[in-house]
């Protein structure tokens, strides 16, 4: 029996076992109708697994699920959708060349004869988007709209199918701060209309801002459910990790040395052949962290790809220790003791079908002791892998597990472990803590600062303003492919950066761009 009447959902003693991992271990989760419920926990704690069970993607090995007072058994997502459970996945499942409307009605199309009834479809989509304040252009193609817009399409899609309970798996990880605010507006209006929301995030600020109650998972077990109003961020962090966590970065004043890296008048084009990086000049010194702040899509990705040998440099110079490396390929640049944490871990950073030990040597696989005379030395690789997954606490399945079976945050830790382990002298970190839990953020931040204090130069790109602000020594603001200003981190704040990032010049000077 469900435990209380006002619960729309009651998951009791849910257990799910994957080969070698107990992903859910007697988990309890009860959700009140009309609340916004945050589900938090370390990487690999079992959040996604639990939600996948609720959505009918996995069958639990034990436990019961009650929805609106009735025990349910789901055979697949179709069953969940029929009951009114909708899920917005972190990686959207939209068809790029189709329009917004077509994507929303796909699978439940209103028809006139054999054809899609465009008029009815558009009207229905408009009704939903008006009702919840979800503005979208119904005729735009998915491939032409921003990530934030695509997410709205996903939300409308679940509502179109009649969702009452909406699950969001790390919806804010891919959004800009502006878009996050807009998403929370949408959450509020969904709540007003009586919808119930379960929402996964690693950002405790968001948990405090938007949720009514919080359930914490740790190591596959449900630790506690608390009222948001009764706890501080620090309390939640401690519940998640089981110890106190430093939410603020502790770092000493930088002692910058000689310049290690610079770009001069760099120009780079994007995939559509449109200039994305325009005449950028920057320099990074040994022992300092230069942060790049900017709304995503303003040329950061192209800049990073160009300086790591993954994209052609149209014109301009890339200098490493005074040597022009603009014509180097990715391998040559790696060999110059440059490490790179790429922004997209699934596309670039990992070979998802490779196991952990094959992934942890990617890019170094042809070097001793991993390879000798063209023959892989997997015994050495195994030892090396075991050391690193212990040191970096990469959890889930061990070194023979495929990377795709790791939780998102553990995938990120695997990349960090790999890139930090070859004594980099110049480190390029793109979104280094995206999707990573608080404990691991603390760890990764410490590692980055350690590198800096050991004399490495660091270029940090992050959509997370607070991360850029707390880690960087200097901050360059990028807007539409140009650096609009370079500021001392200690002399600026989120407000000023926010303004610069959207194109308005700062009034309060700051260090100018040399």
């Amino acid at each position: 029996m469900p435990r209380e009447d006002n619960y729309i959902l009651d998951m009791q003693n849910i257990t799910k076992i994957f080969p070698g991992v107990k992903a859910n271990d007697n988990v309890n989760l009860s959700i009140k109708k009309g609340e916004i419920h945050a589900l938090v926990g370390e990487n690999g704690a079992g959040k996604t697994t639990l939600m996948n069970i609720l959505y009918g993607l996995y069958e639990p090995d034990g436990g019961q699920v009650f929805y609106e007072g009735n025990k349910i058994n789901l055979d697949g997502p179709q069953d969940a959708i029929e009951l009114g459970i909708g899920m917005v996945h972190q990686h959207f499942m939209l068809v790029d060349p189709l329009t917004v409307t077509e994507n929303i009605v796909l699978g439940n199309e209103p028809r006139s004869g054999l054809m899609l009834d465009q008029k009815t479809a558009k009207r229905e989509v408009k009704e939903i988007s008006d009702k919840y304040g979800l503005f979208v252009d119904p005729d735009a193609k998915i491939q032409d709209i921003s990530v934030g817009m695509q997410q709205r399409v996903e939300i409308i899609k679940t509502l179109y199918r009649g969702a009452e309970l909406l699950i969001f798996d790390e919806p804010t990880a891919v959004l800009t701060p502006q878009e996050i605010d807009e998403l929370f507006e949408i959450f509020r209006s969904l709540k007003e209309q009586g919808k119930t929301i379960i929402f996964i995030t690693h950002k405790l600020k968001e948990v405090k801002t938007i949720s009514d109650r919080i359930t914490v998972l740790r190591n596959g077990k449900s630790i506690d459910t608390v009222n948001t109003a009764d706890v501080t961020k620090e309390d939640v962090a401690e519940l998640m990790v089981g110890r106190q966590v430093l939410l603020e970065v502790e770092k000493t004043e930088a002692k910058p040395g000689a310049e290690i890296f610079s770009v001069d008048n760099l120009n780079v084009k994007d995939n559509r052949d449109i200039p994305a990086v325009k005449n950028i000049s920057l320099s990074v010194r040994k022992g300092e962290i230069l942060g790049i702040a900017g709304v995503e899509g303003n040329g950061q990705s192209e800049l990073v790809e160009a300086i790591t040998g993954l994209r052609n440099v149209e014109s301009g110079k890339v200098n490493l220790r005074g040597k022009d490396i603009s014509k180097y390929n990715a391998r040559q640049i790696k060999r110059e003791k440059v490490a790179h944490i790429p922004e997209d871990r699934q596309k670039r950073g990992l070979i998802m079908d490779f196991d952990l030990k094959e992934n942890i040597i990617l890019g170094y696989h042809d070097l001793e002791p991993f390879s000798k005379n063209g023959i892989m030395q997997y015994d050495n690789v195994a030892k090396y892998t075991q050391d690193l997954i212990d040191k970096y606490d990469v959890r889930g399945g061990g070194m023979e597990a495929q990377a795709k079976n790791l939780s998102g945050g553990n995938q990120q830790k695997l990349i960090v472990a790999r890139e930090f382990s070859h004594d980099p002298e110049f480190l390029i970190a793109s979104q280094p803590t995206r999707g990573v839990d608080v404990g691991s953020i603390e760890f990764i931040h410490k590692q980055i600062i350690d590198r800096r204090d050991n004399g490495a130069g660091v270029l940090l790109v992050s959509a997370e303003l607070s991360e850029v602000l707390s880690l960087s020594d200097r901050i360059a603001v990028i807007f539409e492919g140009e650096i609009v200003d370079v500021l001392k981190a200690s002399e600026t704040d989120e407000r000023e950066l926010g303004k610069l990032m959207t194109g308005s010049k700062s009034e309060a000077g700051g260090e100018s761009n040399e």
Partner: protein
Amino acid sequence: MNNYSDKIKSILTDLGLSLLSIVVALIVGTLFIFLTDKSPLDAYSALYIGAFGNFSAIANTLWRSTPLILTGLAVALPFRAGLFNIGAEGQLLMGGFTAGVVGFYFTSLPAFIHLPFAIIAGMFVGGLWGGLPGFLKAKMDVHEVIATIMLNHIAIALTINYGINIFRDTGRPATPRIMDSAAMFNFKNIMDHPFLSKLPFAELFAHPAIRLHINFFLALAAAVVLWYLLFKTTLGYEMRAVGFNPDGAEYGGINASKGIITAMFISGAVAGLAGVGEVLGTHFSFMQGMDAGYGFTGIAVALIGQTHPIGVILGGILFGALAQGGLEMQFSGIPSEIVMLIQALVIFFVAALQVFKVYLAKRKAKGGVE
């Protein structure tokens, strides 16, 4: 370790799925056998006896599986590197033709030079025929499927339509018979061999119906070499990385061109060896029709073997057994069309299985990776 048993489990699941598709094919096949007046039980027992019923049958099953293992490998290796090689047919023809010409053209070479020379020449030309589309893909981004299909047509024109006519000495559409010094060892002649005849049970092979020759063992060796290349060498690591995720491989500093060209050259050489064996071991001349569609059946062999070199050996033997046992089925009165139909059903269900597996993987990925 726990994951070790997981790995074995997943291999067993794969094997089980392959077996399942064979069983389903045979069950569907019974429907067609009912169309004749024969009983499916008799038909299938004929199939089994024909393929495995006695020593000669087994040996000839292996003989028939030889070119299939090789073309299967020629499809499997590039598959792992993300390439679809439809050109095994053309590579086989080029390799076989070259070996045939070398085999009859040089009349006074000792066997220990002539045979290896013919084999290597055939493999090399096959390798070029595979390497060329690899090169086009790597350097000019020409799709390998298109390039290999076109090269298949060119190979047919060069060898069968044109090549044979240059050299043929009789009315038969074939090149002249190769010298004995270029012929591969046939096991039925085992009692004439100074060492092999001393082996225990050697006399079992000395049966005039046995056509097994040494190329079967070269095929096994090729499978082991390819397995080693893929899973133990640095180049193999790079090929698999490119095959799974070209963007990730690029990030890892892997030069995809090298892997693509090497994989295609090696696979061309292996397909070439299939042709070489047919010419130097089975027919003793390059003749029209000797390719028998092996290049295309190789695609099915590769898929049923899960594109794993050792799996390909099993897949090749399965198709060899179907061919060998199919003959016995015909003798037992099942029309040859039905026999071919059953073979086609197996290929069909293996392909269907592949689609099913992709579906399963997608479903899993949906849930497994957030």
